């Protein structure tokens, strides 16, 4: 080796190293793919005595769905994750427990001030199951049909009972009505467009879904933004518990049950839509940044475009750099807040470490526009986000971009759809001199969405689960 190649070798940028080879059979499938199944049941379990709990885990592991490529879609999938209380109940060694990130140790309820989960979103309004510290395990079954769902859940709960390792506290059902491959949420929007692509995941990078490069193309984000044990966007390993084997191929999950006041939203949209010269549907599109059929406003600000919605290579392929004033897609629109892309300049570099992988589903029966609804009807979304750092990714997005507007030059304005407005919220739709696209302001905003509970979870690899099941987690 010559001196110059030696120096070149030392200069290798860790973020440029291709870590495409990840061990998909060791990673839970939930992390690597969106299943797109119509049904799901989230079994919220309390663990029993550690030895029994270990047996429960050991027997459950064989049913888990990994990231292995499917030749055909199975009837059901099974995945598992643990709260900090769950890991403590399992009696993992104290040095291991202490090595988890602080926000995970504290749990979501204790992070209320940071997340702005106050007022109507405060824990006293949560479902009872989330007001205690008894939820230890999230055991999720996604299914193609009801019979398969019931059967698989019965089997898993049987294991829980027989081993005495876990007790069912609550079963949370979720379901989705899919239109053109995208689930409808209860306010009538097609949802689930796009997720951040990361290196090693079993799909190529779709335009608009990884990170923006200098030449305007998109490439997958560093694996370590979504999986522990791999380099992240700064070329470092994410903060992770010890031992390394416990953390590697695992990730953190945020679970939030968000009730939707459908009647309130419909009335609001109807009233404001009458005042808005572009009409009700266009106003709905300005709230979210997508028309209710899913058409991205930034690409098609004046009408829905069904062909574009169906085209998965283009329905997330847009940037905001040429629309910094929000004349097409408002700066405070829901999807622009959640993922501002290049809104802050620097070619989008400021958002690459603030991305989250969304895996949630609606709950409650979808009501068509002509069906009468009430706010207290069972309607909502189980919001699920995966990320390597809850603190750096989910909590930042929630605090700075959803519940605050400074980065976006929107002052104290919050996200119109999911913001904790308390009746005093305001949201500005920027506009032009075009009479069909005027500026519009919504004020005295209520909470269209109310938090009903949730927590932070650790989703271990198969290796880690084996270690937990055999009591061989050794931080030394």
């Amino acid at each position, binding site marked *: 080796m010559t001196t110059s190649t030696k120096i070149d070798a030392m200069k290798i940028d860790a973020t440029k190293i291709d870590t495409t080879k990840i061990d998909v059979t060791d990673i839970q499938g939930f992390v690597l793919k969106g299943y797109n199944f119509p049904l799901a049941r989230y079994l919220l379990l309390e663990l029993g005595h550690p030895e029994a709990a270990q047996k429960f885990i050991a027997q459950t592991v064989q049913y888990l769905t990994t990231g292995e490529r499917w030749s055909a879609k199975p009837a059901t999938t099974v995945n598992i994750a643990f709260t900090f209380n769950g890991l403590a109940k399992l009696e993992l060694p104290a040095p291991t427990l202490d090595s988890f990130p602080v926000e995970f140790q504290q749990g979501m309820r204790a992070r209320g001030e940071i997340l702005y989960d106050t007022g109507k979103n405060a824990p006293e309004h949560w479902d009872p199951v989330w007001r205690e510290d008894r939820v230890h395990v999230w055991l999720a079954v996604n299914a193609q049909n009801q019979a398969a769902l019931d059967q698989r859940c019965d089997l898993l709960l049987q294991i829980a009972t027989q081993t005495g390792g876990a007790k069912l506290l609550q079963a949370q059902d979720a379901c989705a009505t899919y239109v053109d491959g995208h689930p409808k949420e209860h306010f009538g929007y097609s949802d689930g467009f796009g997720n951040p692509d990361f290196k090693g995941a079993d799909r190529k990078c779709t335009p608009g879904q990884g990170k923006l490069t200098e030449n305007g193309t998109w490439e997958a984000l560093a694996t370590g933004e979504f999986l522990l044990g791999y380099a992240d966007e*700064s070329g*470092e390993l994410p903060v992770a518990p010890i031992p390394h084997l416990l953390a590697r191929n695992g990730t953190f999950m945020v679970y939030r049950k968000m009730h939707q006041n459908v009647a309130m939203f419909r009335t609001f949209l109807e009233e404001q839509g009458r*005042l808005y010269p572009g009409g009700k549907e266009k106003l709905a599109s300005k709230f979210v940044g997508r028309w209710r059929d899913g058409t991205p406003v930034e690409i098609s600000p004046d009408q829905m475009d069904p062909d574009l919605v169906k085209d998965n290579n283009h329905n997330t392929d847009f940037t905001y750099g040429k629309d910094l004033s929000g004349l097409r897609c408002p700066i405070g629109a829901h999807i622009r807040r959640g993922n501002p892309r290049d809104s802050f300049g620097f070619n989008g570099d400021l958002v690459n470490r603030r991305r989250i992988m969304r895996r949630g589903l609606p709950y409650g029966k979808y009501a068509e526009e002509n069906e009468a609804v009430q706010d207290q009807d069972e309607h909502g979304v189980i919001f699920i986000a995966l990320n390597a750092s809850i603190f750096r990714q989910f909590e930042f997005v929630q605090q700075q971009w959803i519940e605050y507007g400074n980065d976006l*030059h929107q002052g104290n304005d919050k996200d119109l759809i999911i913001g904790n407005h308390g009746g*005093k919220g305001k949201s*500005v739709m920027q506009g032009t001199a075009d009479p069909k696209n005027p500026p519009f*302001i919504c*004020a005295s905003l209520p909470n269209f969405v109310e938090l009903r509970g949730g927590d932070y979870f650790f989703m271990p690899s198969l290796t880690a689960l084996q270690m937990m099941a055999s009591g061989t987690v050794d931080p030394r």
Partner: protein
Amino acid sequence: MANQSGQIYGLTILAPILGEDDHLDIGHATAVRWYLAGLPQDHTGPFAKISSTHFCRLVVMDDVVFVGSPAREEHLKSRYLVFESNFDGDLDTYLTRMAREIPDLVDAVWKHCVGYPGVADPAAFAAYMKKCQITTTFFFADVNNKTVDQTLKALQVQSDVSHFIAKNQGKPAVELQSAFRILLERMTKAPAPLRGGKDSEKTAAEDRPYDH
């Protein structure tokens, strides 16, 4: 010029903190940190007395550790007191005001720094500060080309007008005009907005009782 964003000046001072002194019970960096921690951070804070200040910050910087890839090791030559301030007007006026209007604070803080000449001679103090100045490259996201007074007034107008629009958008022209005249009269008569981050949690709308 990078220190200027329109008429707003962005000042960045890095003053080296004095080294260990065997005669002291605690080091200079610790002493200044303790002093800063005790200062009020609301509208009673010392810099509220200098009315041209938008906001400012005092921090003790121990070292700068490089985080990233490829890794490299580098260190500062000493600890530094970082002073950042965004204000209206020119630098000399501001530094002179600091020396004259908050001399006790300036003394209590900068006496822990290398080469501090005191505030008795404002020109000497200004020269010292300029020697410690580095170029400001980034401003806070919301900094625009407005003075403190203009900003406070503009926020009040923004709040009033956006609530007016929200209440009246879509109304017939005649109704709109008469409502606007009432708004205009109220806005003209409204007292100058209060300074100093009072109740920053409250939205501006809550401070406009006539709006609801």
